[in-house]
């Protein structure tokens, strides 16, 4: 479904990703962990095509198509979703209008008819319920005056509405208390249907207690330095990321 090969990418003059490889099959959940500055968020931005994130070399294919050749919105239309770490406000544009435009843009790209207002509303109400957001959130401006936790839940609401093929969650756990974390995780888990894939980017193991990953990868200095199953996350939890420096030192010796 998603195949990342030897990806090098930079922001301005600084190369952040330095030869990243990752294979994701349909239905798999991959957790990307790593210390601050490892390139976790950069990966999400590079995959979604954000301006200013320049690919130097390597390739990314999604369903056999060259992802890097597509515009930001084309990637979204192809089924790639990014849940933002810091969702931005769009004053005066209601969540409802925003989601309606968005849902219908994706439908149009797939050659499907736009949803009627009634169909849309039904779907939106269900999505709100899943992440325990009151319905009046649909009428409020996108992220306007939302608390940190509300913003994160709103991102998951959008994920539910947009039904992507692959969703990248960029630190969807940061700043959440345990209750909110569970709501977010529940929302995400409801979307695991054996076909949809996930990249769960997180600094802490905590989120992975609630969203069970199939694979855990440790990202350090722009590369995946270790991959394993869920037990790898526990290891990180127990010993932190300090061992990375040691491993690196050893690597340098050898």
């Amino acid at each position, binding site marked *: 479904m998603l195949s990342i090969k030897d990806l090098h990418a930079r922001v301005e003059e600084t190369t952040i990703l330095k030869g990243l490889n990752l294979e994701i099959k349909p239905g798999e959940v991959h957790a990307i962990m790593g210390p601050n500055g490892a390139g976790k968020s950069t990966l999400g931005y590079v995959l*979604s095509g*954000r*301006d*200013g994130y320049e690919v130097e070399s390597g390739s990314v294919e999604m369903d056999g198509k060259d992802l890097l050749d597509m*515009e*930001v*919105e084309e990637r*979204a*239309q192809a089924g790639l*979703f*990014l849940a*933002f770490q810091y*969702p*931005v*406000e*769009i*004053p*005066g*544009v209601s969540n409802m*209008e*925003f989601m309606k*435009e*968005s849902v219908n*843009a*994706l439908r149009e*790209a797939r050659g499907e008819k736009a949803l009627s207002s009634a169909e849309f509303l039904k779907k939106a109400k269900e999505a709100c319920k899943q992440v325990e957001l009151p319905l009046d959130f649909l009428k409020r*401006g*996108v992220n306007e005056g939302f608390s940190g936790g509300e913003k994160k839940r709103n991102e998951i609401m*959008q994920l539910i509405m*947009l039904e992507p093929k692959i969703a990248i969650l960029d630190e969807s756990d940061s700043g959440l208390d345990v209750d909110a974390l569970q709501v977010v995780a529940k929302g995400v888990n409801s979307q695991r249907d054996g076909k949809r894939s996930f990249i769960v980017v997180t600094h802490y193991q905590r989120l992975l207690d609630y969203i069970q990953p199939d694979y855990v990868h440790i990202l350090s200095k722009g590369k995946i330095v270790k991959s394993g199953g869920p037990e790898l996350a526990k290891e990180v939890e127990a010993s932190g990321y300090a061992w990375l420096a040691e491993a690196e030192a050893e690597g340098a010796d050898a």
Partner: protein
Amino acid sequence: MSEQIDQALARKYDAGFVSEIESETFPIGLDEDVIARLSAIKGEPEWMLEWRLKAYRTWLKMEEPDWAHVDYPKVDYQSISYYSAPKSMKDKPKSLDEVDPELLRTYEKLGIPLHEQEMLAGVAVDAVFDSVSVVTTFREKLEEAGVIFCPISEALHKYPDLVKKYLGTVVPRGDNFFAALNSAVFTDGSFVYIPKGVRCPMELSTYFRINEQNTGQFERTLIVAEEGSHVSYLEGCTAPQRDENQLHAAVVELVALDDAEIKYSTVQNWYPGDENGKGGIYNFVTKRGLCEKNAKISWTQVETGSAVTWKYPSCILKGDNSVGEFYSVALTRGRQQADTGTKMIHLGKNTKSTIISKGISAGRSNNAYRGLVRMGPGAEGARNFTECDSLLIGDQCGAHTFPYIESSNPTAIVEHEATTSKVSDDQLFLCRQRGLDPEKAVSMIVNGFCKEVFRELPMEFAVEAGKLLEISLEGSVG
């Protein structure tokens, strides 16, 4: 992102076509003879000619204002023709069937069908083409309600006393340079009279079209709402795409007597010039309304066109408890320049005014809000609230705010809020990541920014204004 914005600002102006219509156009130039000829063609009463000549003589002594935050080559007032009318209008057509089909096609192309059965139900239209009114629809229906809605040239014949009583009472002949010029040479425009206690049964609207080359359009609109009456009026404007600048110097006067209410909405889409600033309309307009006791005047404007805009729809809140409102969206792009805002002059007790101004600048344009709130000595307990927001698209445009507040009454309260923001890369990226193309994204963000103003427009026009904004923004991001 800024380079994408740059290359994109070359957008099409849909109303930029020229109609092939035989016209009778005065040679260029302005003197007392021209004014006399103009007045004669219109068959005006003697006092009107005198009025015009007085205005002209005042104008000759005046200086063109240069305090606005705009920069344009001086207008040569002797190189403009002051009258142009389709020849077919000479023998006044009695009904639509007699109107030159090419004229009707022009309006159809602009989306304003003049056949009543095809029109938006409930909107009466006066169509002004260059210097004359082509047709006014739904007149009979309005007459039943006692409402007068006709070209001002016609009102001078049919209702001379009414016109004489109110013309120049709100915007005097010598009010300012452009108003004086307009008073001397105004050609047509609409006259509206709503009798006492009548609620106008439909929206009234005037559609202005400049077609002929080297002509100026100087329309004059006068709306009188008698005690306790109510009217909602909308004007729209377009012009062909030409390399030369053309002058539009209009005057609009509103009179709201005790307990009356006038809602005046403008969707202005004059040709803005090309991306290098060549051509476009100079829109130098004086609009002012007078409120008597408990009266209310509400100006709503959506300004997307014109090369240079100089316009301050204002309210004189003379009567106690009267209310003035100004809701404005001004969008500039390319090399457009706008200096627009309002004046709220509080004279009466407990008068209230609200100003909501939304300026959007893109490309290399400059957009200035200039507003005056004056609390006179008698404005006991008066209140004003001003909110003035600017939105920047790209990094080569400018937004400016010039608020003037003068208070001579200690009990009056004036509030002013202002913000400046940018359509941020973050917002654009969020929208695009959710599958929207950049143009849709920008137009959605801008529409959200303007929401408070669009809410004030009559329903049909709110949709139109949203669309116009979308078209105007077309290509403002790549």
